[in-house]
């Protein structure tokens, strides 16, 4: 049992997906309990797995019993062990949240929705566990296909957004696949660790093919994670998607892709290639700086709440890419920590936005007046997430910013530090704009008065199934912040296994 944890983590949602699709047609009441049950199992075993990893180091699970270069294996180190827990937690929380929202937003499609949802989670879990470069592509496609469908479930603009996502997502995944092909051509292996060994042994660092492979993989992954100039698909896709779908897509997909980037950079190519041999980190960090600023500024221009949040994701991706490419341990730790904390922050914000939208039907920020009075607890969750985005202690956003800025200073990259600070300020403006509107009553003229009265009469707190996950996430934000030491120790354990990072500054 103990050595089967990696399989259980993945298989629980997977089997539940099949069961939901089989039983859901017969009786749709089965969908939700199965989903929640499987995610609980998955969460528990991922926590157990994390414990195992933290204690005894890397866990390798051979699928089909074939040893390393021949078969596919799961490799769980503290880094993706943590990510697994994060994925399971977030999936569980938003599945509870979806009880009501799914019934409102996608009626009669319950079994399909939950099947796709569970398959998405399976795909993401698989992406973070697998130790095989090609298998990663397949799982990326599983996750992408489900997200295309989840986004397109709503009508009108969501469909167009989904189409653009399909085009961009395919370009990204194909670039990744091509990069893997180039790697395979030169190394003859698909296993990540094996590729690294071959690269080191054969002295392939000077090869143009490897260079292009690296660039292709990076560009592909950047498209998938919506790194700034390649972000075009994300804002529309996430803001027009059904809120249940965006609650799981927005926190997880980009973050897992960032993890994939880290995996590729450090496990496959190795820091000595990426930082020492290529030495591009300055260029990429400056791109990240542009991404942070552009994302924040574009977010500032939005009037739609979910769209604003989506652009913030673009900025946050810049944080993480910049942190990873700063080429020192502090910044890398910060970036990984930010992956985790940002996942929860985004979840919290999207849950709150979803709750507001389902209860009031309002999308625009300026329509949200008086929300503190109508749904105080929702707004409490929103405020905590907002504080975390701004970076106020003791929320986790502060600590990730702390490590990132620390790393930026260590690398001597003041532009990155400045970008982080400016983006924090812009976040403050953004969120306090929302909070201000929600806190103050509209200056009511006579004609408005009746409207407000009639509007406010029906609006109250969302049901407990929506509020509960929101508040749990908010508490998680605080807990992750307060107990950041424990997480950081795990991350450091993982980072140290990447070998010495090339120091630039």
């Amino acid at each position, binding site marked *: 049992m103990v050595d089967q944890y990696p399989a259980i983590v993945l298989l629980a949602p997977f089997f539940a997906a099949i069961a939901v699709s089989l039983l859901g047609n017969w009786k749709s009441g089965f969908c939700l309990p199965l989903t929640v049950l499987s995610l609980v199992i998955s969460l528990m075993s991922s926590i157990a797995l994390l414990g195992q990893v933290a204690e005894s180091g890397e866990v390798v699970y051979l699928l089909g*019993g074939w040893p390393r270069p021949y078969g596919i294996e799961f490799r769980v180190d503290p880094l993706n062990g943590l990510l697994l827990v994060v994925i399971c937690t977030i999936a569980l929380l938003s599945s509870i949240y979806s009880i009501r929202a799914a019934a409102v937003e996608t009626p009669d499609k319950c079994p399909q929705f939950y099947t796709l949802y569970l398959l998405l989670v399976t795909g993401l879990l698989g992406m973070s566990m697998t130790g095989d470069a090609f298998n990663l592509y397949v799982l990326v496609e599983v996750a992408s296909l489900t997200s295309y469908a989840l986004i397109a479930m709503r009508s009108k603009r969501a469909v167009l957004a989904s189409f653009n996502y399909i085009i961009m997502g395919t370009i990204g995944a194909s670039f990744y696949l091509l990069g893997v092909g180039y790697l395979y051509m*030169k*190394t003859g292996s698909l296993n990540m660790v094996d590729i690294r060994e071959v690269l080191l042994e054969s002295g392939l660092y000077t090869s143009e093919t490897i260079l292009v492979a690296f660039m292709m993989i990076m560009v592909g992954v950047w498209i998938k994670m919506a790194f700034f100039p390649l972000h075009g698909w994300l804002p529309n896709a996430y803001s027009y998607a059904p809120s249940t779908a965006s609650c799981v897509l927005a926190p997880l997909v980009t973050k897992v892709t960032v993890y994939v980037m880290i995996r590729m950079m450090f496990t496959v190519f190795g820091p000595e290639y990426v930082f020492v041999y290529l030495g591009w980190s300055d260029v990429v960090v400056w791109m990240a700086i542009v991404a942070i600023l552009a994302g924040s500024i574009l977010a500032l221009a939005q009037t739609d709440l979910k769209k604003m949040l989506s652009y913030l994701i673009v900025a946050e991706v810049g944080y993480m890419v910049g942190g990873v490419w700063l080429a020192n341990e502090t910044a890398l730790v910060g970036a990984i920590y930010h992956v985790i904390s940002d996942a929860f922050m985004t979840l919290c914000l999207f849950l709150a936005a979803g709750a507001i939208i389902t209860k009031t039907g309002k999308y625009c920020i300026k329509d949200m007046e008086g929300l503190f009075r109508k749904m105080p607890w929702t707004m409490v969750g929103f405020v905590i997430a907002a504080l975390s985005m701004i970076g106020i202690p003791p929320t986790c956003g502060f600590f990730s910013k702390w490590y990132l800025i620390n790393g930026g200073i260590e690398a001597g990259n003041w532009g990155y530090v400045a970008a982080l600070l400016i983006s924090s300020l812009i976040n403050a403006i953004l969120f306090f704009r929302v909070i201000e509107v929600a806190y103050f009553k509209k200056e009511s003229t006579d004609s408005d008065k009746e409207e407000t009265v009639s509007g406010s009469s029906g609006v109250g707190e969302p049901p407990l199934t929506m509020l509960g996950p929101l508040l749990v996430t908010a508490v998680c934000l605080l807990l992750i912040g307060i107990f950041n030491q424990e997480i950081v120790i795990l991350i450091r354990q993982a980072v140290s296994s990447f070998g010495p990072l090339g120091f630039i500054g």
Partner: protein
Amino acid sequence: MRALGTIAVILTGALLLYASGDFPAWGEPYSPANDSRVSRHYILKSFEETSVPNMVTAVLADYRSYDTLFETVVIFTAGIAIISILRGPVDKRVRLRRASEKSLRQSNLILAQTCRLLVPVIQMFALYVIAHGHHSPGGGFQGGVIFGASLILVALSFQLQTALDRISEKRAMILAGIGVLIYSGIGLTCVLLGSNFLDYSVLSKVLPLSAIEARSYGILGVETGVAFTVTAIMFAIYANLSSHGRMKGGL
């Protein structure tokens, strides 16, 4: 958009051309990829280890069976995705029970007769492809597509409803689910028998087979699962795409 496309194309193309100078020559038997221990192991050892002469099948369904599981899942996902995208609010009022005789008569006689002749043959052949995947090209996926194509043929030469009478969309989806379940069920059986996921050799504990034969039969079982899913999904995709997801009328 054109300018953007041109720039992207030129940049990527230049990059790829730049790298192509570094490639080993096409068809070079001792290039790193072809001469790697992974590839050599598959060619030299796969028959020994799985008793399947078709190396592609052996690698596909045993060494990298986890990939293939998710390949099946991709297809399954695509089916569900298409249904969930195209299906509007369910319209329960008009639902033809069976294709009326009239519609059968309306369809072209020559086509109908040819189809009557062809469809069973195609289906038999599909089964052959599935089962013979160990020894010749083919296997679950190809057989499944052929089987699905035979159903599409029915729909094309009669009415969509005629094909739906044979296998309704709901049943198709259940079949698809069962297919994935067969695949993953075999994997899970291996776990329950005390080995890793998808390690078929452990099936020899319950079947009267040696470990190597068990691998071979495991592959067969897995291919069957793939075939189920692919058949059902191919047909479901066609049925949805050709009728706007309304399951009536259509191409």
